[in-house]
């Protein structure tokens, strides 16, 4: 009797497994959320634009951004705060204090990482180095070789952040400096192909280090008419990147652009204009489930 019962039960379990009737159909899968806050091309806009009736009158300002970031941090557990470069240049704060206050405020707001824009060299690489030493956030770039400069060892190609259950890899790429920045400012910084480098490090992060989500901070620019490498090219010609947070072209996007990568997988590309007028918030949810099963997966960005 016992034996028969067991056989019957075993048979039922086997049948269930064979037909794919998993217990997860009865219970909700485990979920996790990642909040990505981002800025780009803040250009030393420490204070809001003056209220003089001009185009961006009254917009922006670090004090407003900081309080919004605080509010979001209180509501969300897993927050990453990132910047896509050109933190420097554009107001007298930079001319007079060489980026000191910009980095101080970003450290206070607990930025996790930033990539380096062309204007971040404007006070010279020595000044950038001096400010970077004071900063509590990482400078991330994988296509500038700083070996023969003071910045050697100061910039990481990527960094991994454990945010709750989710392992997030962040890498960074920068624009070609030749003819954009006087060489006397960037000195012996060597530029390498950003697509090749991003692909290499994104693979390390996703395949070797087991990151669930890979973000590329880019100061290449959103898109160009001329033949110049952009975030669109970066997205289309690489694998293993989930999100590109861009800069340089000061592009205001209503929502992230979706581009198919080298493997046909979707990459989200975003940029939030400039001057800290907008703080971007990407809210990414993750579902723990069997390899070929995901109940809530919906790759389209929802506004």
């Amino acid at each position: 009797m016992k034996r028969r019962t067991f056989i019957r039960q075993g048979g039922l379990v086997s049948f269930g497994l064979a037909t794919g009737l998993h217990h997860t159909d009865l219970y909700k899968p485990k979920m996790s959320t990642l909040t990505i806050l981002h800025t780009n091309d803040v250009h030393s806009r420490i204070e809001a634009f003056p209220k003089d009736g001009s185009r961006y009158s009254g917009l922006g300002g670090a004090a407003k951004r900081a309080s919004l970031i605080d509010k979001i941090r209180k509501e969300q557990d897993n927050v990453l705060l990132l910047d896509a470069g050109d933190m420097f240049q554009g107001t007298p704060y930079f001319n007079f204090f060489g980026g000191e206050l910009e980095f101080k405020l970003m450290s206070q707001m607990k930025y996790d990482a930033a990539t380096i824009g062309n204007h971040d060299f404007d006070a010279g690489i020595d000044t950038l180095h001096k400010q970077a030493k004071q900063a509590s956030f990482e400078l991330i770039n994988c296509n500038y070789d700083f070996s023969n400069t003071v910045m050697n060892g100061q910039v990481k190609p990527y960094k991994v952040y454990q945010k709750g259950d989710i392992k997030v890899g962040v890498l960074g790429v920068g624009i070609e400096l030749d003819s954009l920045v006087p060489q006397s400012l960037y000195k012996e910084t060597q530029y390498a192909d950003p697509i090749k480098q991003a692909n290499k490090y994104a693979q390390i992060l996703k395949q070797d280090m087991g990151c669930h989500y890979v973000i590329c901070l880019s100061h290449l620019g959103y898109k160009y008419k001329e033949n110049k490498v952009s975030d669109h090219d970066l997205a289309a010609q690489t694998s293993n990147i989930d999100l590109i947070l861009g800069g340089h072209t000061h592009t205001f996007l209503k929502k992230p652009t979706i581009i198919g990568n080298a493997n046909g997988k979707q990459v989200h590309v975003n940029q939030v204009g400039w001057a800290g007028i907008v703080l971007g918030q990407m809210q990414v949810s993750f579902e723990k489930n069997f390899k070929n099963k995901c109940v809530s997966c919906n790759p389209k960005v929802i506004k």
Partner: protein
Amino acid sequence: MLSLSFLFSQIGRIGNLVNLSLRERVLKHMRNYILLLFSIAILHSCTKVWHTAESNYAAHQMDSTAVTSALIKDMIAPYKEKLDGEMNSVIATCPEDMPKDRPESTLGNWMSDVIYDKANELSEVPIDFAMQNSGGIRIPLLRKGDITKGKIFELMPFDNALVVVHVDQELLLTFLDRVARSGGWPVSKNFQMKIANSKVDEVTIGGEMLTDRVYNIALPDYIANGGSDCKFFIGCERTTYPVLLRDMFVDKATADKVIASKIEGRILR
């Protein structure tokens, strides 16, 4: 899985042939063994992974409704105090809105004329014209009204110094073609150029057609050093002056008390 159940029942039958207690012992062992096999099978075929499920996006505009962080304001305060004294001082007035535009604009004309005049004052040879890259003007519009020193810093935040390049007619035309390709750059008085099909067409300097001689052009060092696709200037004969363009604008505005200019057809397309 079905084959495992089958195997179990077969072993059960073998147990029947021996005696009851042995059969039960075998059964117990087999049960444990099979449960273990099941567990391994489940773990192996059904390992769970984290899927990126859904992305939602919000763009938060930092407008006047946003709350201000007192802590950040306090951090800015000592820096602001140092700056404000100097930057908020009104140095001139601007009677009309002066936009930045192509192929020619009042703002670009004023700036280029300031560079031209200062370069002529400093240079031993007469300057033919002054030009600067459009991208070097960092505000879209100088609004009419009071102009503070800080506004000039916004207009020209870069620490660009003055360079006079001494070039032949051929290099001059290479440069003007590059300018034409961009649809025109800010240029000083006495210069006229027509752009046709994104190329330089007719050029006159001081009313005269180009000839085979040396031209002296006042430029930001950024351009003279090859910036903004002007690599053809690298290595050309030059005189450098350790004076910042921004300081020229501040000094001129402070002295004149007025910032104004006219559209004169310096560049046409």
